[in-house]
């Protein structure tokens, strides 16, 4: 175990203290954040310089619809609203310069919802928003409590097909959409971090270190240490990005009144999807290690890997277009159990149908089983490709020999 730890730590610490890792890990989110911020700031400054300053004078309101009956003059933090009994008194106040504009609620306001504003110089949009918000409050204050409560509560729509099988609701859909974003992010991040795996594994061959290391530890110990160490490197990078991105998104959604964290973490299948994502991430990294072992170095290796990712994009189309219509076909069931397809196909099936527990269990066994089997396959590749200088395995000559021996 200690030797596995030595390999693991060398990989992990050696990578996360590299300049290139630090620049990419922290520079990437900084770049993503700073560039839009700089753009937004520039735009805001341009807009601010183009907009005239807000007039500090109050606005008037002539209420002929009876909306504000009994309501006192309503001071607002943006603008003071003064009530006038007639259009004439409001017009006189405007002419005197006591108010910058006045709003007129005509007698048919309740039917038309129309409000007029009269001014000498047009007020800024901020004034319109403040007055509009205040009028909305007045309308809500007149509504009965049960109506008001229902207005404040969002409608929950539950879908059910004619057979009564497919059931999902909007909250599930939202959670799934958010987790889908997460899945896409992990997949994308995985393809970035796979480069560490290619280079690290292939460099053991280029640097001829593998032959020395294998006289100290077994190939399996070496692989386990290396793979876990490099997974740690990739996951630490993803975590750094998730922390930055997640904090911004959660903070922004909280400001807008959404409890995104509650929706994501409260979803029944969150734990399952995390396991699926992690299994797929590990599969991707093991595939990257295999490409490294097969001497597809940093040039052709990533190209091959990215091509595979593109091909797996076909699964994405299938999952989003066909699976929602027929979520329980044999193909959909199988695809939701396989490492590369499961993060999308299973996700869609979970939203549009009831996935039986046995399928979820078998899926988990297959996905993690593939990873364990891949380690043994990598061990074989390690011995035959990194150390050996034997002729590469070719199917046709091998078959010919086998047939000749019969």
């Amino acid at each position, binding site marked *: 175990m200690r*030797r596995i730890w*030595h390999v693991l730590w060398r990989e992990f610490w050696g990578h996360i203290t590299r300049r290139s890792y630090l620049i990419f890990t922290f520079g990437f989110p900084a770049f993503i954040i700073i560039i839009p911020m700089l753009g937004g700031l520039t735009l805001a400054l341009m807009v601010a310089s183009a907009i005239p300053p807000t007039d500090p004078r109050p606005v008037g309101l002539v209420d002929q619809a009876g909306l504000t009956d009994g309501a006192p003059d309503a001071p607002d933090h943006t603008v003071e609203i003064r009530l006038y009994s007639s259009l004439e008194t409001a017009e006189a106040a405007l002419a005197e310069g006591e108010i910058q504009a006045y709003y007129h609620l005509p007698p048919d306001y309740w039917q038309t919802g129309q409000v007029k504003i009269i001014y000498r110089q047009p007020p800024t949009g901020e004034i319109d928003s403040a007055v509009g918000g205040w009028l909305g409050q007045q309308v809500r204050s007149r509504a009965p409590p049960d109506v008001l409560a229902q207005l404040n509560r969002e409608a929950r729509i539950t879908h059910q097909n004619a057979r009564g099988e497919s059931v999902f609701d909007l909250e599930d859909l939202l959670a799934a959409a958010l987790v889908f974003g997460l899945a896409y992010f992990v997949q994308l991040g995985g393809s970035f971090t796979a480069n560490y795996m290619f280079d690290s594994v292939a460099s053991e061959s280029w640097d*001829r270190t593998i032959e020395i*290391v*294998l006289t*100290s530890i077994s190939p399996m110990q070496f692989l386990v240490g290396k793979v876990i160490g490099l997974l740690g490197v990739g996951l630490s990078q993803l975590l750094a990005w998730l922390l930055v991105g997640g904090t911004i998104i959660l903070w922004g959604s909280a400001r807008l009144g959404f409890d995104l964290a509650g929706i994501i973490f409260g979803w029944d299948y969150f734990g399952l999807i995390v396991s699926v994502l992690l299994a797929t991430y590990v599969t991707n990294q093991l595939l990257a290690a295999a490409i490294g072992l097969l001497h597809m170095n940093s040039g052709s290796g990533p190209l091959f890997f990215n091509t595979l990712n593109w091909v797996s994009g076909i699964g994405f189309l299938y999952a989003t277009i066909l699976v929602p219509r027929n979520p329980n076909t044999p193909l959909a069931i199988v695809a939701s159990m396989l490492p590369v397809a499961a993060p999308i196909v299973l996700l869609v099936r979970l939203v549009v149908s009831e996935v039986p527990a046995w399928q979820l269990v078998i899926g988990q066994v297959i996905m993690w089983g593939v990873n364990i089997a891949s380690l043994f396959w990598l061990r074989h590749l390690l011995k035959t490709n990194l150390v050996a200088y034997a002729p590469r395995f070719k199917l046709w*000559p091998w078959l010919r020999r086998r047939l000749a021996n019969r």
Partner: protein
Amino acid sequence: MQDNDPLKSVADSPVVRVKNLRKTFGDTVAVEDVSFDVRPGEVFGLLGPNGAGKTTTIRMMLDIFKPDAGAIEIFGGPLTAAGRDRIGYMPEERGLYPHMRVIDCLAYLGKLKGLSGQQARRRAVTYLQRLELAGQEGTKIEALSRGMTQKVQVIAAILHRPDLLIIDEPFANLDPVNSQLVRDILLEMRDEGKSVIMTSHQLALVETLCDRIAMIHYGRVILLGTVAQVRRDHAGNVLRLHGSGQIDAPPGVLHVERRNASEWLLTLEPGTDHRAVLQILMTANGFSLDGFELARPTLDEIFVQIVRESRQ
């Protein structure tokens, strides 16, 4: 009576025993039939031309490859995890982590051999001083010269004080001064009762360093014994002549080499009587024989002769 002494038999039992080893890669036979043993406290030379099967044999000994047939015993049995820790290995193709600092790289490789981090660093510093690399601890491997890298590689192989050192071409890339430093370490290990298996094409060094040698050619052991014994066995095959004139290869002579204006070396075919050759030369026109001796060839000469013979 002495042979029945259990302590002596343990001490003398081979550290490595290789028997009828065979390894093929597809259609290529890398090792056909290799057998030898290495005893405690000896430097054993594994010689042979490029592609003879030396490295494959070593890799099978280290359990990097599995042999197709034959048996290997290391420290009296199959290679175990504990046995691995008692072996030091320096492959022909040098392997160090180029982006690591010298001290970190050595400490890492030492830890993989079971040393504690502190122990590995302490020993690394001692050996770096001994091999005249003091002050290079913080240098990255990629910044070292070839010779320096090779010395670091030697340290990596001996840091954990192995009982068996397998070292492939230890003197390549080294100048005479550094060769001497490495040679001293190998001899010191031998004096401590440890075993060293080395391969080298610098046969003059092998002659002075190795107690016994095995020469592998086309995957077979074709020579095995002490250096003196091997040279003695080949002495009858080379005739050193002093004289003047011109020599045309007489029957029974494999190869004629003119060393200088008055000296020739004649390599005889196995079974040729040197007296018959001398008689022909003495009666031949165009050559006047002043003297002769049956030369004891150097390992270099034996090596060349064997390779030439096999090609013919």
